[in-house]
């Protein structure tokens, strides 16, 4: 049998990293939310904040565990799948990942122990501080890993000697041209995604008439947050795109399926890019809107895909469609959040049942946007693994295709099992809802489920 080792290594890496990013996205946002609830609890002394905090901590525990184990896989896969890349980029990327481990992972892991098990062992303030420390840890971790990824997109601060990158300016390496945009966009994405999960859970409780007090608190907090962050994401994303136009123009051309650089760019609402003949089939477009967004002039020109040979173009369809999926999610989030804010302002938020029912179903929009965004970014970088420095085809490990295919199958099976159970358990925890005065049985579970009992305060 004939397997293409590079393609398989890419598929395997894409699969495992897409699986991984689902959980950081959620835990970065959720840890910040939990810390906020903790702070509100300390300040006001109101129990509903504590109940909510404890509720989300249980869900956090399950998703964090999945984030950790899938992350450990990734840190080794850079060596197992991309050993030639490791040699070329090791001098530069190694320290960034090293800083992530030392500055973030130990911090998160340790204080997570206190957050999950410490409520009866440590003073309240230390408990809440631990929640905040976990949130800070996840943010530091995002900082370093995104610095590493951005360096692969827009390498800076180094020189090549005998085909190996040697750092010359660490500040330029870390704060490379695309890093600030990517960090802001990703961090905001994490908060938005979590905001929509909280919004959906609050709406679900209200729509089904359970946990009313907690549901209202969640709904208000989530709408307040997302109504600001969703429009903000559009602004950050726009700036991110302008910056990418400067550094990776062909990626932008692929995102817009723009072929001929001599013409102004239309904005394609729908199209089927024909990579063979170099034009768009079935195109539905707004004339010149692409140029307007990207150059702020009607007849502004941006480079087209045809300006480089086919072997230097990214896979246009993947980039084009994933970008459109992200945009669709983004605009949906803006509309949903602003509509909620409008109902809130009118004072009818908790009575507008159709809105609550609809929102209860939309917990996943952020995750889809994040995955689509990453697929845009990473596929748009192709055929380079380090932009203009190292081709992906020259970066893989000397491991036979069949071996990679076998482990890819193992990953699919294993992650399939883990993911199905994880989603199922999280859904069950959500259905059970927070413990509280109106949870309809706050004492009942003490005998039944040892975990909730422990986390509620009977553990020794």
């Amino acid at each position: 049998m004939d397997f293409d080792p590079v393609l398989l290594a890419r598929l395997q890496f894409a699969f495992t990293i897409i699986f991984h990013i689902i959980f950081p996205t959620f835990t970065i946002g959720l840890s910040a939310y939990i810390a906020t609830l903790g702070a509100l609890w300390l300040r006001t002394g109101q129990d509903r904040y504590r109940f909510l905090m404890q509720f989300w901590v249980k869900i956090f525990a399950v998703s964090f565990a999945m984030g950790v184990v899938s992350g450990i896989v990734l840190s080794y896969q850079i060596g197992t799948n991309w050993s030639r890349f490791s040699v070329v980029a090791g001098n530069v990327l190694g320290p960034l990942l090293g800083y992530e481990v030392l500055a973030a992972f130990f911090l998160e892991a340790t204080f997570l122990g206190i957050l999950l098990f410490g409520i009866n062992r440590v003073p309240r303030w230390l408990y809440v501080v631990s929640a905040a420390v976990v949130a800070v840890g996840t943010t530091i971790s995002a900082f370093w890993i995104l610095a590493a990824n951005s360096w692969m997109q827009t390498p800076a601060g180094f020189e090549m000697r005998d085909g190996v990158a040697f750092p010359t300016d660490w500040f330029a390496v870390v704060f490379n041209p695309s890093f600030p945009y990517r960090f802001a966009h990703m961090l905001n994405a994490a908060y938005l995604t979590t905001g929509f999960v909280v919004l959906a859970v609050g709406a679900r409780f209200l729509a089904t008439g359970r946990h009313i007090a907690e549901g209202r608190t969640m709904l208000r907090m989530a709408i307040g947050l997302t109504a600001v962050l969703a429009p903000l994401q559009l602004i950050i994303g726009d700036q991110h795109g302008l910056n990418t136009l400067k550094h990776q123009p062909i990626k932008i051309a692929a995102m817009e399926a723009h072929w001929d650089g001599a013409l102004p760019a239309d904005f394609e609402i729908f199209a089927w890019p024909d990579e063979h003949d170099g034009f768009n089939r079935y195109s539905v477009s707004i004339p010149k809107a692409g140029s307007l967004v990207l150059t702020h002039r009607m007849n502004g020109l941006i480079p087209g895909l045809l300006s480089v040979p086919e072997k230097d173009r990214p896979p246009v369809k993947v980039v084009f469609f994933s970008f459109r999926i992200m945009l669709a999610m983004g605009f949906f989030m803006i509309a949903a959040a602003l509509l909620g804010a409008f109902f809130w302002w009118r004072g009818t938020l908790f009575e507008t049942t159709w809105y609550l029912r609809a929102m209860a179903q939309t917990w996943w929009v952020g995750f889809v946007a994040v995955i689509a965004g990453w697929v845009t970014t990473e596929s748009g970088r192709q055929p380079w693994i380090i932009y203009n420095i190292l081709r992906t085809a020259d970066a893989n490990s000397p491991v036979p295709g069949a071996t990679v295919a076998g482990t890819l199958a193992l990953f699919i099976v294993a992650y399939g099992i883990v993911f199905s159970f994880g989603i199922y358990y999280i859904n069950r925890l959500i259905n059970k809802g927070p413990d509280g005065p109106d949870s309809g049985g706050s004492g009942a579970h003490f005998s039944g489920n040892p975990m909730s009992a422990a986390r509620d305060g009977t553990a020794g």
Partner: protein
Amino acid sequence: MEWYLPPIWAAIIGLAVAMYIVLDGFDLGIGITFPFARDEAERDQMMRSIAPFWDGNETWLVLGGAGLFVAFPRAYAVIMPALYLPVIVMLLALVFRGIAFEFRVVSHSKSGWSQAFFAGSIVATVAQGVILGNLIQGIAVKDGGYTGGSFDWANPFALLCGLALIAGYGLLGATWLTMKTDGPVATRARQQAKYFLPAVLIFMAAVSLWTPLTEARIAARWFSLPNFYYLWPVPSVTALIAFATWRGIVTGREALPFLGAIGLFMLGYLGLVISNFPYLVPPSLTVWDTAAAPSSQTFMLIGTLVLLPFVLGYIVLIYWLFRGKVHAGDSYH
């Protein structure tokens, strides 16, 4: 040239690996003894004794891997493809073991995830032993890249190391339970330690004989003069510690068996370091051959010197916060 940077980095990575072996060793060991518990309530108690720590323990594995990537990218780029299958299998086993901590408590039936915890622990342990065995034996390298096949790792010595590590982690786990739990769980763990300790000693002897017999460079390291004069204390101290550990187990001491088990591990580890230094990928690549650029090693060294004390500090904090025994019947967490 900054010739001294690579040995410093070798020491740091050596420390990370040692921390990993001891810390994750005892919680993998608990997974290994999982099937022998009477019921899920006992398993709850066993798991509770490690639940606040396991994530931090496993982070040392990430530091070991990332450290290798930081300081010795060329070694990383040879070792990972060479040990591709054992590494991936180990990672998958750790996935199941890690999620079992949380999934076990939220599922209706605990026993399924208890089995996943056991299977994950034992597979990860054997895979780590295989990785270790191959690193001792050496890896086929040409022009700085791996040249062997996908299954070169499957050889008798590596499998012996896999079994040895089951005994070793089992000993760490059993003595940890002796120290951190009470009731039937602790009593059973003390019994188990009585079996694990002799097994560990036999395996240590086997590895110590096998390597010098098959690897001339290791025989020369230990048995040439004057090395022999400096090195004979290593086996002697090992024997003394083994004896003290045994006494500790049979006389009902609480912490001594666990500390003794750590001591045995450290001496075994020291023995391997003596056999192989300065090779990182024996028999061809030394720490100097594979080192990252001095600028990279320095940049990271600064961070390590600043951050590592903090890391150690809050690790001490969490072990202190969760000090004392976990009793039977305490609810989870």
